[in-house]
């Protein structure tokens, strides 16, 4: 059976409207002690006949917009990208920041009832607070909500029985309520575990700097070794650089092999920005980025 998604993308490539489609593919892989595992993984499609590999289901957790700023993808004159509401927010920021042009992109918006996180987490944490189950910006809309809802209901049950591991809101509230000393200690405990694999940075659609400040050596702002001083500088710096930009797609936390609560820090920054400047990132393509819209009357109470 050919799905609407496959038909639309076939057309895009066949009519040479785009030369590349960033999408989700389903693969099977051999594992021990059980049947083959069906996994979803990003797939780059350039030929119409390959579009039959595209799928959209509740395991499509990746935010593909991270590839948009890569050299290989930029070499294409126009690309189409499969994106959920949360992913479209980061596309929005990339457009605001002049990293990509809206007209060079066809957004295949996906109506979404929530996706399943990997690492045995029953549900991606970002989905709990998602307001964009139907995307806010798109060129083509693919709706497979029904099929998804059914599965997620099952998942939801599993969540209850499993007593969901670390839901992000709970982690956030816990950290928010701590007194400064405890919070600092919590940060030290967590960030001392970071091994500086940079999966969080590499997977982040908004960490697109050609040369990250952590890789700069003249001067070397941030120590490279995975010890507390450098780790703290790295993560605090990263949180600063993502303030007013992070769209809470949760990819950094999903990618982190040490399971550090990375989104918590970014969420806090987002909350502050929202309270003080009534700004939420990734909602409009024609809005000035937060840091590009300084006004004299802006609140500065955070400067102590």
């Amino acid at each position, binding site marked *: 059976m050919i799905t609407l998604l496959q038909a639309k993308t076939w057309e895009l490539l066949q009519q040479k409207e785009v030369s590349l489609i960033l999408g989700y593919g389903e*693969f099977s*892989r*051999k*594992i*021990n*002690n*059980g049947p083959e*595992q069906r*996994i*979803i*993984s*990003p*797939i*780059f499609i350039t030929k119409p006949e390959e579009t039959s590999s595209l799928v959209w289901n509740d395991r499509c957790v*990746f935010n593909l917009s*991270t*590839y948009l700023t890569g*050299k*290989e993808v930029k070499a294409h004159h126009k690309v189409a990208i499969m994106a959920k509401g949360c992913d479209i927010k980061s596309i929005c920021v990339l457009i605001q920041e002049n990293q990509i042009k809206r007209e060079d992109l066809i957004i295949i918006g996906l109506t979404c009832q929530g996706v399943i996180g990997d*690492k045995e987490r029953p549900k991606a944490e970002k989905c709990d607070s998602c307001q964009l189950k139907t995307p806010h910006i798109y060129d083509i809309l693919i709706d497979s909500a029904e099929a998804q809802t059914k599965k997620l209901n099952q998942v939801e049950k599993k969540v209850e029985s499993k007593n969901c*591991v*670390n839901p992000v809101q709970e982690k956030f509230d816990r950290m928010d309520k701590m007194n400064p000393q405890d919070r600092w200690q919590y940060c030290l405990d*967590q960030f001392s*575990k970071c*091994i*500086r*694999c*940079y*999966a969080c*940075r*590499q*997977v982040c659609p908004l960490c697109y700097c050609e040369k990250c400040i952590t*890789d700069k050596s003249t001067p*070397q702002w941030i*120590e*490279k*070794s*995975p*010890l507390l*001083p*450098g780790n703290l500088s790295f993560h605090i710096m990263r949180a600063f650089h993502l303030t007013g930009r992070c769209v809470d797609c949760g*990819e950094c936390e*999903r*990618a982190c*092999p*040490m*399971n*550090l609560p990375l989104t918590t820090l970014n969420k806090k920054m987002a909350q502050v920005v929202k309270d003080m400047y009534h700004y939420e990132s990734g909602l409009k393509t024609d809005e000035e980025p937060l840091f590009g819209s300084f006004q004299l009357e802006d609140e500065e109470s955070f400067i102590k």
Partner: protein
Amino acid sequence: MTKLISRDNLKKLISKVLTSFQVIAPVNENNVSFFKRISVYEQIKWEDNNPTKSPKEFFFAPSDDLFRYQMKNKNILLREPSNHHDQRIILGIRPCDMAALNILDRVFLEDGKDLLYSALRDNTLLIGQSCRTPGKYCFCSSVGINPDDSQNMDLMLTDIEKNLFLVKVVSEKGEKFFSHFSSFFQEADATNGHTPVQTKEMVDYLKRGALFNVQNINEWLNENFEHPIWSEIAAKCIGCGVCTFFCPTCHCFDISDENVVYRDSSFQGVRRRIWDSCSFDHFTKMPMHQPRPTQDRRFRQRIMHKFKYFIDRFQQGACVGCGRCRSLCPVGIDIIEVLERIHCLSYQSHGVK
């Protein structure tokens, strides 16, 4: 020599050695399992499979101090680092990670001995553990490693019943340890059913045999430095350090001067060796030149290094089949998929010949 130890006695034994040795064992925090120095037996988390993080960090740490320096009035004073070389016991390393030590040994002990590494190897007693059940992602049997191989271990534990371990005394060091603590052990009696019974999963795993042939892979790599599969497979690779940092055999590092404190005209600091990865863009970047400018080239380097260059140089491969890179890659790149494809391609190209 084979003995028995009950779980209770193992607990007593570990509690006792904790008073005179550093003990490192598998634990689980934040839902990630890894090896850690423990202070009480209860911290240990016995799992059926390999911890997420490999034990290589106890021989080759994410950050090692190489030496300290101090500058005063144009005088440089160099000092040995304050690395601690206390006697250690590492508990629960499995055969694949033990085999990985062979690879690190070749690099750090041969042709310019790395003193820090060799001291850490020498002061450590390795109480390994054989595998009763393969992990989901394991493929040790495809790279010639047996899940009950005791190489590099001093003692090997095999759990034969819920609360009973078979203990194989492997090395001289292990024998010394055993004779010192012999009261905790009891005699094994093969006639009494004290032989490990393979789980059904393990039988299936071993019966399935190798998923690919390392020799074929190696030969194909000889011919196919340029091939479309590299860019195909690596297109989605985001260039992080996950597959290499978690790999028990990856050993590339960077050297950096850190912790520098300046006071007037004097300063002091430490030179460190830090894990690095061929997946990173800066790994080979030079002022005017970048030999591996794209991610597919960096990905190819990783596969080539493990299945060709290392074999060419040391006559052994640099993958032990622990499966960590498969399970942790944030975008689902699977080394088995890569190797199976290469295996098929090599078969095809031979077929054509």
